[in-house]
């Protein structure tokens, strides 16, 4: 019998939560975070493929939890519904889900963009556009003021989250106006979800530096929407499971010093509970490092100035399945429901750690 899946918490917890897509990578992380959350009690966890099996049979870290998957068609009413199904599923079920739950937090791309036109441009259209205007973008560093009371919350994309967090201080300081920005992202294999074909087999996927989205990544749409700036975006798959690291090469109009940037980042993130600025200093970890935040809801952001040409290089690192999805969702729900912002999200990362 394992310690985890603490009865005490769940007894005292009064807010019920269910997870759709709970056998997936983001869904599993939702379960982990909710199981340790002081305010939430998990009601249901859905999976069509593993219905009636224990969640521990899919997620070995949750072997201590006394919970079995149920069919998504058997969802009961609940306070908060977290959905982590592939793109397209939420649009299809959003009416039913909003009927069943006071708050719906969807981790897919289905409600991230504001207009139907954007879905026409970047995706294959939208089948429930009438919900778009209700949706609030989850990332609290951007949406903190809009989240309280929101009843449809759209979790940001992981690469978009990393990029936005790295650039946000520059955007707020007006340094991106007219600027030309190249975003070069490195991500782990969990971004692809639990499915995976030949390209994501261990033998093929190990050790790669694979340009999987040379141009035209859909997250550009979110970045543009949230920062008001079109970026040149390229993503590479590298040999890690968790983690997204965004390097942004920015050419501001005028000269910027590193001390200016410290001020700019402090301005934006000084009070943020989940953002740490790491920009030089000493030791082995001088810039944002995905493995340092693995398993946590933290983002590390940092920067450097190129003395040759005034280029500002920003770095940002997150765990794609936490800050980039499940953690961001819980964080947003905390703000939406008026809980302590950091409730259930206080995990430390690990050191040393290999390639989480």
């Amino acid at each position, binding site marked *: 019998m394992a310690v985890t899946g603490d009865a005490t918490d769940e007894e005292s917890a009064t807010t019920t939560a269910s997870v759709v897509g709970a056998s997936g990578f983001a869904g599993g992380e939702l379960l982990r975070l909710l199981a340790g959350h002081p305010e939430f009690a998990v009601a249901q966890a859905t999976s069509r493929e593993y219905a009636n099996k224990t969640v521990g049979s899919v997620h070995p870290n949750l072997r201590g939890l006394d919970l079995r998957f149920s069919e998504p068609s058997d969802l009961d009413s609940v306070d908060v519904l977290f959905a982590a199904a592939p793109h397209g599923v939420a649009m299809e079920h959003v009416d039913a889900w909003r009927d069943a739950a006071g708050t719906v937090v969807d981790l897919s791309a289905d409600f991230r963009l504001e207009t139907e036109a954007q879905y026409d441009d970047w995706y294959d259209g939208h089948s429930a556009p009438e919900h778009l205007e209700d949706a609030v973008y989850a990332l609290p560093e951007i949406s903190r003021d809009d989240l309280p009371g929101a009843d449809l919350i759209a979790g940001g994309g992981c690469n978009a989250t990393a990029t936005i967090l790295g650039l946000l201080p520059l955007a707020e300081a007006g340094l991106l106006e007219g600027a030309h920005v190249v975003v070069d992202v490195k991500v782990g294999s969990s971004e692809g979800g639990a499915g995976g074909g030949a390209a994501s087999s261990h033998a093929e996927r190990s050790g790669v530096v694979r340009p999987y989205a040379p141009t035209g990544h859909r997250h550009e749409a979110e970045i543009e929407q949230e920062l008001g700036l079109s970026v040149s975006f390229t993503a590479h798959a590298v040999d890690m499971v968790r983690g997204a690291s965004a390097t942004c090469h920015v050419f501001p109009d005028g000269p910027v010093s590193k*001390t200016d940037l*410290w001020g700019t980042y*402090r301005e934006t993130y000084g009070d943020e509970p989940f953002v740490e600025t790491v920009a*030089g*200093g*000493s*030791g082995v970890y*001088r810039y944002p490092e995905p493995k340092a935040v693995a398993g946590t809801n933290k983002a590390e952001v940092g920067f450097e100035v190129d003395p040759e040409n005034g280029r500002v290089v920003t770095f940002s690192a997150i765990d794609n399945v936490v800050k980039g999805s499940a953690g961001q969702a819980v964080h947003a729900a905390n703000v939406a429901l008026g809980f302590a912002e950091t409730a259930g999200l206080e995990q430390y990362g690990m050191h040393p750690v290999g390639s989480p």
Partner: protein
Amino acid sequence: MSTCTECGADVAVHDDAEAGEILDCGTCGTELEVVDTAPPTLERAPDLAEDWGE
């Protein structure tokens, strides 16, 4: 309290600090040298050109 020259953050210099002592700024990690103690004054310490990375 003193101020980091790199990032502008407050840096607490302990009471018995001596001139020449090296501290790292708790915010940006820059190594700072205590160049004066009354009042405590910090300067960026000379880089140790550590072999970091490749």
